[in-house]
């Protein structure tokens, strides 16, 4: 039997052994703390332990589990909350109370809960990897589909149980492969968290993830199967933005990873999501959400694993043919966990103490996003939206810079916007989305033909304002000619009336694409009408006195989402008032 040789924080070493393999799960000490092998040399095997190591002694037993760090996948994942290594926190509360004890070994999924299973294969059918053999309603929203593990060789169905109520470990189907080996299929399977689940092929990305947030949907869209990063210093609203996206985006399932963040925030997500009713399905948001919570005071090694656990769960549901959005808050904490462990291993640090493999780890993670044809033949996607917390709010630090290389959508949060309580505080000048081109056809077909042109005109106004502001900062607005003053006033409507969005207002918290389009259209109508008035020699003061600018700033509140015909009246009013100005 192997024994522990040394203990230093979460890093434990075993001496002179050949029993362990890389990335294998281990049980350390008498408490059987869960850990993972992260290094093997001639003399030492190095293990990172996912739980507190207080009281651990050299000489205590340590044993390999024989499998790599794996997630248990099966019905019961949704509406649940797990820690970084997929331990169910509600169950842990029942076992050890409000504070989490070390060495609590519990099954991630409820093994006693029964599901209404429909077996979809008959004896004699052939089953291949990724194909579905049973389904069951997991929540009122989501049907769980049990698929043959991608690792299986497949084969012929020998027995299939009758439809009925089964627990996750009950065998429902038996298959025999070409070599005559039989395999018993239950409702669940295991998958190593650090290995991406395979798909048949990657499909081109051309559908937007619709979020109901104007600056995202219209100006900086993200595609289903795409990647986006939200960098921002503290207090700029990263978490708020992610909450909004998690609540309103049109993914089927949300995986929310709280990686090294605040405990109260996770509690808030739990509470809010169970109370919020999704208007599209009339069910609480928790029905389509799974939470991974590794708060900042939970063990650091499990924080590193939480990201992988989250994405593995997402890929599993993707393989059933669902669209998943992952909110990872925050990837910087994950990178810091890497740094912390790397430091304990005394590895040679690269930039700012981060290990040299930081970029490759980041790219591996973001590359697990994608829109795919699954092994089972359906289409599914995983969209990753990662928050980044740059140290010292400096975007040139390694995590932000490396993330920027691997994502195609960059929503830079801005301190000065946040200070002025302009939310979402996404800075339109620093941010970009590479998906605009890919998604153009979708917007043309599903919203309006000229959506992209209208969007471009709105962007142009912001760009021009940005140039003019250089002058305004030096000389004030009074010196500008009237047409430039008009542009500044119009840009103000775009900023305050359009980009700024109130998450606490019942109509403004989610805005359908149609209304987004009509709002832009109204702004452009006012702009072009006012421009004509200016060219007729009407002064800016007269134009402002019409009150139309203020009216458009408030149209987001004044026009309810279900009364979009009101925009016609707005347009008529703009035209008649403006043409009446002499």
């Amino acid at each position, binding site marked *: 039997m192997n024994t522990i*040789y*040394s*203990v*230093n*924080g979460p890093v434990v*070493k075993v001496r002179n052994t050949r029993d362990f393999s890389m990335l294998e799960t281990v049980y350390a000490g008498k408490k059987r703390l869960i850990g993972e092998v992260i290094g093997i040399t001639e003399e030492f095997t190095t293990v990172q332990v996912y739980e*507190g*190591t*207080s*009281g*651990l*002694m*050299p*000489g205590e037993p340590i044993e390999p589990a024989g499998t790599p760090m794996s997630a248990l996948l099966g019905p019961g994942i949704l509406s649940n*909350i797990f820690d970084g290594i997929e331990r169910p*926190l*509600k169950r*842990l*509360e029942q076992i050890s*109370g*409000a*504070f989490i004890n070390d060495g609590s070994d519990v099954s991630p999924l409820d093994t006693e809960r029964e599901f209404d299973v429909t077996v979809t294969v008959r004896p004699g059918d052939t089953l291949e990897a990724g194909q579905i053999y049973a389904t069951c309603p997991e929540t009122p929203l989501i049907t769980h589909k049990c698929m043959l593990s991608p690792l299986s060789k497949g084969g012929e169905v020998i027995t299939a149980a009758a439809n009925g109520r089964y627990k996750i470990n009950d065998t429902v189907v038996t298959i025999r492969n070409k070599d005559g080996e039989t395999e018993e299929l239950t409702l669940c399977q295991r998958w190593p968290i650090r290995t991406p689940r395979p798909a048949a092929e990657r499909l081109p990305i051309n559908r937007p993830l619709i979020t109901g947030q104007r600056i995202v949907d219209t100006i900086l869209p993200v595609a289903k199967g795409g990647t986006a990063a939200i960098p921002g210093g*503290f*207090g700029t609203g990263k978490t708020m933005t992610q909450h909004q996206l998690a609540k309103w985006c049109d993914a089927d399932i949300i995986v929310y990873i*709280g990686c*090294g963040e*605040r*405990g*109260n925030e996770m*509690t808030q997500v*739990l509470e809010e999501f169970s109370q919020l009713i999704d208007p599209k399905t009339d069910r609480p948001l928790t029905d389509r959400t799974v939470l991974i919570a590794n*708060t*900042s*005071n939970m*063990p*650091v090694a499990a924080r590193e694993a939480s990201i992988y656990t989250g994405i593995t769960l997402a890929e599993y549901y993707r393989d059933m043919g669902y669209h998943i959005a992952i909110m990872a808050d925050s990837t910087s*904490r994950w990178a*810091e966990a890497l*740094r*912390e462990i790397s*430091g304990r291993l*005394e590895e040679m640090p690269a930039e700012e103490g981060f290990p040299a493999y930081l970029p490759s780890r980041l790219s591996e993670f973001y590359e697990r996003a994608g829109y795919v044809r699954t092994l089972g033949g359906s289409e599914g996607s995983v969209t990753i939206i990662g928050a980044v*917390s740059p*140290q*010292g709010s*400096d975007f040139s630090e390694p995590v932000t810079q490396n993330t920027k290389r691997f994502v195609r959508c960059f929503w830079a949060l801005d301190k000065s916007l946040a*200070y*002025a*309580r302009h939310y979402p505080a996404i800075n339109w000048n620093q941010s970009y989305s590479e998906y605009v081109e890919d998604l153009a056809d979708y917007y043309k077909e599903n919203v309006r033909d000229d959506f992209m042109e209208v969007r471009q005109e709105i962007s142009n106004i912001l760009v021009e304002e940005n140039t003019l502001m250089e002058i305004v*900062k*030096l000389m*004030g*607005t*009074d010196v500008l000619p009237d047409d430039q003053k008009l542009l500044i006033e119009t840009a103000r409507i775009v900023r*305050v009336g359009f980009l700024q969005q109130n998450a*606490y207002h019942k109509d403004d918290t989610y805005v359908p694409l149609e209304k987004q389009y009509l709002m832009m259209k109204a702004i452009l109508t006012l702009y072009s009408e006012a421009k004509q008035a200016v060219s007729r020699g009407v002064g800016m003061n007269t134009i402002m006195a019409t*009150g139309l600018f*203020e009216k458009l700033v*408030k149209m987001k*509140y004044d026009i309810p989402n279900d009364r979009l015909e009101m925009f016609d009246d707005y347009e008529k009013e703009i035209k008649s008032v403006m043409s009446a100005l002499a």
Partner: protein
Amino acid sequence: MSVKYIGLSEINGPLVALENVSGVGYDEMAKIKLSDGSERLARVVELSGDKAVLQVFEGTKGLSLTNTEIRFEGKPMELPLSPEILGRIFSGAGRPIDGLGEIYPEKTADINGKPLNPVSRTYPRNYINTGISSIDALTTLIRGQKLPIFSGSGLSHNKLAVQIVRQAKIADKNGEDFAVVFGAMGVKNDVADYFKRCFEETGVLKKVVMFLNLSNDPIIERILTPRCALTAAEYLAFEHNMHILVILTDMTSYAEALREFSSSKGEIPGRKGYPGYLYSDLASLYERAGIIEGSSGSVTQIPILTMPNDDITHPVPDLTGYITEGQIVLDRNLDSTGIYPPVSVLPSLSRLMKDGIGEGYTREDHQMVANQLFAAYAKVQDARALASVIGEEELSESDKAYIRFGVLFENKFLKQGFDENRTIEQTLDLGWALLSTLPKAELDRVDEEHLEKYYSAEKAKDIFGEE
């Protein structure tokens, strides 16, 4: 069980190593007895084969390789607890130093605590009225929140903390279930005295537990101080259902102690020499605030830290801001123009505020007023920047209105006396009066209904006078 080990094999800074040990656990405590009979506390920080590395809390002065006897205690550092700790003063390592004798413990608890299961938390919603306009209106303090004060050397953070303690209506019934836990890490003797005196004058001293590690006390002990304080706080809050306000000062000294300790261990440094695990370490303190389901008590934290060189991007304030639920930032310019409390409102923030204010908590218009005040004051900064280039005379009418608003905001709203206790209605009305000095069209964060109800240019004139 308790084996005695004689002698050491190595001494380096606060660390000592000894060999041929067995049956010793990571994080375990040990007592080191010197040949002159005095005792020191030490903790196991690394185990490797039969070698153990220990950090000595009171420093290694006077230790030699031969003059020591070490006895391991078989458990991590524990703090004796009983309701009697109220009104007592302890050293940074939790030993009574007020000459009133030992505590008769009802129980002992591991000072490192355990992570709180997010499922077991209750989301904090109850606001604490501090009577300070800038905090109540703009960065509302919520029971169970951790809201640090980011300050600089020489600013009035201590005074502000005392005013919060004195005016905070945190308790439910006549203050019976309210107490303060005060943890001082590396502060000057004068500062500790100031707090003690103020608590005395306010008559809350009997409700205060003090853990004092002064600036000339050993740095290793400083690492224990906040942990002792929080353990005491959790005990009183969750086992005796009290509302505990924890004041920790100064977190920068704490982080520096951690850095000193880390470098003596030969660890690879991260930013500015601070250890790579500074974030996790600070989080293990700050996250020990909150409310647990099934207990009526709460732990609210106000850590105070001084930003070295007033730099908010320094690792200590930076990492703190990422963990805590907002921050109150103090500003040197405001302070030197005689404005107390010198709260720099734009970078200040309370993350839990949104759910603890409004109808049923403060007043229905609170969020709007706060948003509008923030937005307007942000514009004041733009107007001032412009004025410094082209001169105030050349400004447009609306910019001039903002300049005036800025002056009134700082002198009438932010500024208030050390004894001035404003109700939330007074504060919000004052906010509306300030907003009423601006043209109605500028107010784009409030809706028509509330503009109708509260906007009154006449009232503003009554309060602030013409020009």
